[in-house]
């Protein structure tokens, strides 16, 4: 089914690093027979199958759902987390957005808090620990009231959903000059700040999550806005502003 008439060629300059303690370097690979409908990761699949067939070590990268929702994939493509197309994860990016003959540089999401596991795969478990510190509503299964007994305005629900859509990919950290995870943390804080269910723990949540954020070694926010620009779910940095306001209020109250 694949046609070669519109095949594209690329030079891929890829970060190779054997393990967390090894030093890495950029290595060039050539691929041809790439068609415009392919996703960026499918192009890497083609490269990897070629490398495997030649008995060479394939490039380690991570991905799962390949439809932009699981947050597993994430590459810095030509210096931009998730590549040139706004509002798109790496897996959703198609090769028609590149020109045949391009040299494409591919690097991992870099941050001290995201140690490299191998090649393009990084450890983002620090995000889980931020959520564990308070990114939820605390109540035990079985004790919930009827769903319609707590009314939530359409606007509040909408607003909350805009933040809740964060997929935890880590692009915001990779793009930030301070390697801050404020957009990730802010999105979670904002989601609950906007709805009644989030109110009882509002102060404690923001205090605990920010404390953990800082302990994990993520930097502070200095309003560059790079995070918002690369966020595949286009989460607004107003979530950071809300988080900082909530943090201040909570600090004064406790």
């Amino acid at each position, binding site marked *: *089914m*694949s046609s070669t008439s519109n095949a594209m060629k690329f030079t891929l300059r890829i970060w190779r690093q054997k393990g967390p303690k090894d030093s890495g370097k950029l290595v060039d690979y050539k691929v041809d027979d790439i068609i415009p*409908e392919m996703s960026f990761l*499918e192009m890497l*699949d*083609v490269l990897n*199958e070629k*490398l*495997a*067939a030649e*008995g060479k*070590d*394939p490039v*380690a990268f*991570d991905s*799962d*759902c*390949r*439809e932009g*929702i699981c*947050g*597993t994939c994430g590459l810095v493509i030509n210096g931009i987390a998730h590549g040139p*197309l706004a509002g*798109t994860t790496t897996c959703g990016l*198609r090769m*028609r957005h590149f020109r045949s003959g391009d040299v494409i540089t591919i690097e991992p999401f870099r941050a001290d808090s995201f140690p490299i*596991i*191998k090649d393009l795969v990084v450890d*983002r*478990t620090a995000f*889980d620990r931020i*959520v*564990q510190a308070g*990114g*939820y*509503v*605390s*109540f*035990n*299964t*079985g004790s*919930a*009231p*009827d*769903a*319609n007994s707590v*009314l*939530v*305005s359409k606007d509040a*629900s*909408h607003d*909350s*959903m805009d933040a*809740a859509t964060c*997929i*935890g990919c880590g692009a915001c950290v990779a793009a930030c000059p301070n390697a801050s995870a404020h957009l990730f943390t802010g999105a979670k804080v904002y989601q*609950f700040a906007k*709805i009644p*269910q*989030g109110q009882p723990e509002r102060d404690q949540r923001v205090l605990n999550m920010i404390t953990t954020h800082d302990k994990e070694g993520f930097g502070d926010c200095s309003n560059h806005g790079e995070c918002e620009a690369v966020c595949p779910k286009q989460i607004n940095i107003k979530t950071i502003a809300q988080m900082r306001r909530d943090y201040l209020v909570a600090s004064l109250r406790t």
Partner: protein
Amino acid sequence: MPYELIMGDTELDSKVPDGPIDQKWTLYKQNAKLVLPANKRKYTIIIVGTGLAGASAAATLGELGYKVKSFCIHDSARRAHSVAALGGINAAKNYQNDGDSVWRLFYDTVKGGDFRAREANVHRLAEVSLNIIDQAAAQGVPFAREYGGTLANRSFGGAQVSRTFYARGQTGQQLLYGAYGSFSRQVHEKNVTLYNNREMLDLVVKDGKARGIITRNLITGEVERHAGHAVLLCTGGYGTIFYLSTNAVNSNGTAAWRCHKRGAFFANPCYTQIHPTCIPQAGDFQSKLTLMSESLRNDGRVWVPKKKGDDRHPNDIPDEERDYYLERRYPAFGNLVPRDIASRAAKKACDEGYGVGPTKRAVYLDFKSAIQRMGEDAVRERYGNLFEMYEEITGEDPYKVPMRIYPASHYTMGGLWVDYNLMTTIPGLHCLGEANFSDHGSNRLGASALMQGLSDGYFVIPYTLGNYLAQHQPHDELTTDTPEFEAAEKNVADNLKKLMEIGGERTPQDYHRELGKIVWNYVGMSRDEEGLKKAITDIRELRKDFWSNLKVTGVNEEFNKNLEFAGRVADYLELAELMAIDALFREESCGGHFREEYKTEAGEARRNDEDFCYVAAWEWNGDPTKPKLNKENLTFENVKLAQRSYK
């Protein structure tokens, strides 16, 4: 005949409680044995998988005070593929005042499953559906709302009421994050320990009971032993056996299959769901297919040109020259017929030469009337993210040009056999969510997978597991230092070594693609005796070739995707044969299992209740070519068996 039927001699006891259907679960809960709160912490529960079923079970059991060890193949519990479910979750709330009830959801699900599910399980699911929505709303899941602040609903296939709750086109994501939040709270409380980047590769059975698992650390390659008083398998379905599917690339059937080889029966493997509305394949390079939510059929109209091979642009084909074939053939349900029926109808249209698009394996899903009726903004509000996804993949704008869609593998109704307690044929091994076979019969209705995963995890297993544990005193100390653990660990290590050492020419992906084509062509949307026999022979040949010509690069002791995939493909090469055998011996058509030999004059599925009203529970017999068939007869005391009609 490539396989002669071997009958097993196990009496399968479903353990369905006595009493009227609407009282069974209540009576069960009243009579279930309990574990003293102070004793719960003495029990260690192993939960494999962190999707809706696994995360909700881990959270709830942690809250109850059990010690939970949770395992996932991802870096984070939040990545499980439940995250990708789009359209919604059913619940019999009747908030719309449109005549819904627990009974109606129960009835719709039994009928939707083409009368091949266990009545008592389905009724319990319908009852519990009410609690799930309350639970999720209390977690702060941002469901769609009406202006007054109440929850909104939409319609899904196979139902004439509006009972589907949703969070835009990201309902699975939001429900999973709700469960993941509760799960994370239990990790924080130290009731749950997460073992991420771990793949379960064997089950440890001691004295006939499940007592632990063997895992491989996907970062270091280390093979590890873990002991528990019970094991909960929540590892999802085997839809990626088709290679191309809407599942994630890491979704796999390995954990379930390895349990099968340790004695858990595998039920109805031929019941697979091919989802009607996916973006068609564009080329051989493709790694997955993308689903367009069923919710689109609320407002989208499915059609093909009335003239065969009509090459005109869809917008140039006037209404009277279009065949809205679902509306024509099924006026009562129209575009909202269940998935199996919509998929087969699309296949039929393409087989007969009416297909559209470059490959002619597609039909149109058109929003023109919806846009005219309610305006582009209203359509955008309902389906905006799906339309964007479609445009990014195909380069076409569905607000202007109808979508092209074609069926793809999406879900598996088959899975490990479980009784009413969700326990498999291995005592102590429980199976939840898509990985089990229990609630959807031979066809799952839309928005019911999320419901089942959360029902099993939040509201069923906390009761049934307690009932099991209360009958088994906790040992003083859990130990992995037993001959059974040693043997299982050796089995895993030997198998990994064997895969690494074949030293052949073909990659695991290459084998997977070829297997996928066999399964899609002969064990896919339509099946017949000749094709199934051919599939069995072809799969055997491919399996033989795999074990002599596989090439795995790298080493075990590192992050090695090729090795992970190789193990999963090896298991699929065995499971695929069981699927074909199951399909061959089910000489009827029901739900997702359509045999060309058994159809009505109108081309609809023709069941044979006389001979096949049973669950086919296959028993491992030491060799993938010699499975044994055990039957659980299905009795319908509340719903009358009838030919399923949506006309």
